[in-house]
């Protein structure tokens, strides 16, 4: 029964990683860049929800919508101001810019919200679920996190596979030049991708802070890196890959903490990543494109 409870916490943590990883993987797939500021957008999402509930007295649900709105705008702004001017620059320049944006967001948060941790109260109003005569207790936050992740995956899959903008995103991801020859605006498509990724980051931020209720300017950094690992683990650029990578990473982390060592859990996570990449360099679901002549 303890194993089951660890497994459920793992899936829940993994769901948060998966939601963040989706943002990384979509931006990578379409703009071919690693947006290292993505983790810090999570933090901004957390603060927005915190401010909405504690300062404005809004309901938890509207605080999530508020956080999503602000992060969407923030994501688009970051893309327009920092990345768009570098569209044809070498990828190293873009990478360094992304790290710069990450530091900028963290330090701006330090200025605005001070380094003192805020204690975040969960946005989830439900009670814990008690199963098997109280032997298995699943918190409301855990359930909401897993359900939210499932809904996001299904929605995103529908968007990407069924809608016109989703198909345009896949086309840009595969061949930017030819996508333009079809009449697709690459800039618009990249903006939409950043908007979606940042809105998801806000959701992840709120869920993360609901589960681990300490909010600081560096709150997003570590989960951001873990989620990036998850995206690479699953095959960067692949949406199902980000989902699978996120969930697996969460499970490995929690089981590692529970059965091996709390201190070593991060090392175990990254060791698994290294092994997977040695065996399958494209990640679990990464694609190898065959070109016919």
């Amino acid at each position: 029964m303890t194993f089951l409870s660890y497994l459920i916490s793992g899936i829940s943590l993994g769901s948060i990683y998966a939601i963040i990883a989706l943002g990384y993987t979509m931006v990578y797939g379409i703009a071919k860049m690693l947006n290292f500021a993505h983790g810090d957008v999570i933090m901004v999402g957390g603060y927005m929800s915190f401010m909405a509930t504690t300062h404005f007295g809004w309901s938890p649900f509207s605080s999530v919508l508020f956080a999503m709105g602000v992060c969407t705008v923030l994501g688009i702004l970051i893309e327009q101001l920092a990345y768009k001017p570098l569209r044809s620059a070498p990828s190293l320049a873009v990478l360094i810019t992304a790290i710069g944006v990450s530091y900028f967001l963290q330090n701006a948060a330090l200025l605005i919200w001070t380094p003192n941790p805020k204690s975040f109260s969960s946005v989830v109003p439900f009670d814990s679920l008690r199963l098997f005569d109280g032997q298995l207790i699943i918190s409301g936050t855990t359930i909401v996190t897993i359900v939210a992740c499932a809904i996001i995956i299904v929605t995103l899959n529908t968007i990407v596979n069924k809608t016109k903008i989703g198909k345009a995103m896949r086309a840009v991801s595969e061949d930017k030049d030819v996508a333009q020859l079809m009449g697709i605006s690459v800039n618009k498509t990249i903006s939409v991708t950043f908007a979606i990724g940042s809105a998801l980051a806000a959701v992840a931020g709120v869920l993360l802070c609901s589960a681990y209720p300490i909010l600081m300017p560096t709150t997003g950094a570590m989960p951001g890196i873990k989620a990036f690992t998850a995206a690479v683990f699953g095959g960067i650029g692949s949406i199902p890959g980000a989902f699978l990578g996120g969930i697996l990473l969460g499970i490995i982390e929690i089981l590692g903490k529970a059965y091996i060592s709390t201190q070593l859990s991060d090392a175990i996570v990254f060791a698994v990543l290294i092994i997977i990449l040695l065996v399958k360099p494209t990640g679990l679901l990464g694609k190898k494109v065959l070109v016919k002549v």
Partner: protein
Amino acid sequence: MLKVNSIHVFYGNIHAIKDVSFYVNEGEIVTLIGANGAGKSTILKTISGLIRPAVGTIEFLGESIVNLSPHKIVRKRLAHCPEGRRLFLQMSVKENLEMGAYTRDENDIEADMADVYQRFPILEERRNQLAASLSGGEQQMLAMGRAMMAKPSLLMLDEPSMGLAPILVEQIFDLIVELNEAGTTILLVEQNAQMALSIADRGYVLETGSIVTTGSCADLLNDERLKKAYLGG
């Protein structure tokens, strides 16, 4: 319809296109022929906006398009079917056709899709398969189908016969003629000069980035020098 005026294109330090001018009238099939590396594809990419010329003007239907982004140029119904097919391999056959019609209203494309399927029944059979799973010939059919879905008034085709079996080359060229008869103006880039000149109205011969000869196809086919260089005679 299309007027290219003394364009120069550079790739870094390489002067790839030197003072190239030509025009295409409405209803014509015009072909650019020349050896590998003569700059044929570069010219098409410059017209469709993927590359900017350093100097020179490009007019389409009386309007300058030289500073427009590629996705805006397509909306003027000037389509470019690039070299090497360049399909979206991770998308299905049907989705590739839909991408071809990206600039158009989704409700108007059913009939055109049916038309493509009627012409290439194999594509209908495989409409839900990934483009990557098609054979080379089927991929070329799909590339042509995708170009047709754009309903362009001027269609630029880059090496549509490349790597195809002779029977398929025949079929693709028949299709080009049919499209032209149905009102699409064609700018055709080909290495297969014989084939291209046999269907075109006029031709331009390119050598290392410059136009060296031009004329009606009948004249070009009889040009002694050309015969030696490109026509295997």
